[in-house]
């Protein structure tokens, strides 16, 4: 079952008389999805809007709780609180680092795999590198502890015998942030490389052939052929990642952090969770969640507009 992929010109569709006929079938197909979207993705947004401008009370519920005075009370409280800037800084730092290191690493891995001429090695490495993607953060947390503990972890035991000193991976705030970033790269690089690898394998081999005949070295073809051919994919992933710039990885941080390292890894999401669910301030928690979403939205629209200049966009 082989199938050619080719884009057909839009014009040929436009003049077809049956253009409007199958709409009933389409609607039926979309129905379950649309209903799901409305209930589980849109209603929460609406609820968040309401809860965040009210003083939410359990007994009164969403509709009957009194509106906060002023209505932006919770937003104001957050923006003026002493943790606003540290939280924003931590979130941005972690998330930017994950993005700016993650994408080049994944591209590099994809190119390396593509350059490998030993098929068995290529396959083995490929399989090994995306295996971590299948591990949950709970699992990785367990692994980190046995590997990076300063007194009885494997890595530090080696460091001690090699250099005589140890690194406080789990307790020093700035080192711990690197551990958060590093473990994310470990988990996701292999997986995100797949998409670039796929894009590379779609490059016309004749291009390379021609380059070799011209005497280009293999290293040079990477720069002049491989990279330019996958720029569109890179930009696309970059746009998508920009939209989630304020998601520094709640699951990961929530599972992994401890009291000693709040100063560098406490991110907006974990703070929102603690405020809402540990201290029972649901309105504040919702307000901050919403604030975050709005920033994300502005981010992605801006980046998307910018990237249109390079001829790439999401929609």
């Amino acid at each position: 079952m082989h199938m050619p992929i080719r884009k057909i010109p839009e014009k040929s569709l436009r003049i077809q008389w049956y253009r409007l006929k199958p709409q009933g079938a389409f609607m039926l197909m979309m129905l379950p999805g649309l209903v799901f979207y409305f209930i589980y993705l849109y209603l929460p947004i609406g609820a968040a809007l309401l809860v965040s401008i009210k003083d939410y009370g359990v007994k009164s519920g969403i509709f009957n709780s009194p509106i906060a005075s002023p209505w932006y009370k919770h937003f104001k409280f957050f923006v003026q609180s002493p943790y606003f800037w540290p939280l924003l800084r931590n979130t941005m730092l972690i998330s930017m680092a994950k993005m700016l290191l993650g994408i080049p690493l994944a591209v590099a891995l994809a190119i390396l795999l593509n350059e490998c001429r030993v098929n068995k090695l290529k396959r083995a490495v490929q399989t090994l590198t995306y295996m971590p993607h299948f591990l949950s953060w709970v699992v990785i947390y367990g692994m980190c502890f046995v590997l990076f503990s300063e007194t009885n972890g494997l890595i530090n035991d080696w460091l001690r015998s090699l250099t005589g000193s140890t690194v406080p991976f789990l307790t020093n705030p700035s080192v711990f942030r690197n551990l958060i970033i590093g473990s994310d790269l470990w988990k996701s690089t292999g997986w995100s490389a797949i998409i670039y690898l796929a894009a590379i394998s779609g490059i016309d081999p004749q291009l390379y052939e021609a380059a070799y005949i011209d005497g280009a070295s293999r290293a040079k073809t990477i720069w002049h052929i491989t990279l330019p051919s996958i720029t569109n994919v890179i930009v696309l992933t970059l746009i998508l990642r920009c939209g989630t710039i304020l998601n520094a990885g709640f699951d990961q941080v929530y599972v992994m952090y401890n009291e000693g390292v709040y100063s560098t890894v406490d991110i907006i999401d974990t703070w929102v969770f603690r405020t809402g669910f540990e201290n029972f301030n649901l309105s504040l928690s919702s307000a901050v969640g919403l604030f975050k979403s709005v920033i994300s939205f502005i981010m992605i629209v801006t980046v998307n507009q910018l990237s249109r200049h390079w001829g790439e966009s999401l929609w």
Partner: protein
Amino acid sequence: MVTYSKNRIYNFSVNTILVLIGLICFFPMLYVVSVSLTPYEEYLRQGGIVLFPTQFTFEAYRQFWKEPYIMQCFNNTVFITVFGTMCNIFVTILMAYALSRKNLIFGKFFTFYCLTPLLITGGVVPTYLIVRNTGLLNSLSALIIPTLVSPYILLITRTFFANIDASLYESARIDGAGEFRILFFIILPVSLPIIATIGLMYGVAHWNQYFASLMYISDSAKRTLQVVLREMLNRASSMESDVVVPTRTLQMAGVVVSAVPIILVYPFLQKHFTQGIMLGAIKG
């Protein structure tokens, strides 16, 4: 095909780097397995440094299966992974197919409708309220229905369908086939790569989901494996007077049990997967 491999040093360095990367990924996993197979006393005697087990025991695994409700939790996880993924695939494909068709009216609106939640989410509390008000709390369906469609995966699937050769549709239409017929008999048979891809993505998400299960499930017998595992790892920091703290080997056995099944799925889907993600991700 190009077969210029004269540059030996080049090949050698590429291969070396790859081997190194492979080891970095492999080594932590090996360590976890080794610890889980080592008797606890031996583990302590080695000071926690067991790269290869010198003595074997399955004691830690036997212990792990004695955790309260562990069998139910394992079954629950398998159930939501298998059944949940099937539901995901079904709804996503139907929706993505319709969205991918150029003659869908209000196509732009629907696309926007489906992509916005990629960026704006209601957050934990409101989502909880909705899940609760739709009566899903404390049932396994709370782990399936609220994540029925992932906007991101929908986007990939839609792109895949949009890239399919239009002549396939046309010939079917000329035969007078309806849209459902076209989808099920013509499009789906050539869509195995995308089915495998999104199946894997949904499956991994289901297997590893921890938070939803923590929030929505309160019945001990309905929890999922990750929650049990996290609870077990947490118990290590409990200082209550009667608590039996799980040993490191037991914890690692838990880690292995909750990671291996999902890892084993991958090789079966690998072939289709790479193709699927490529076709879905590159914008046509």
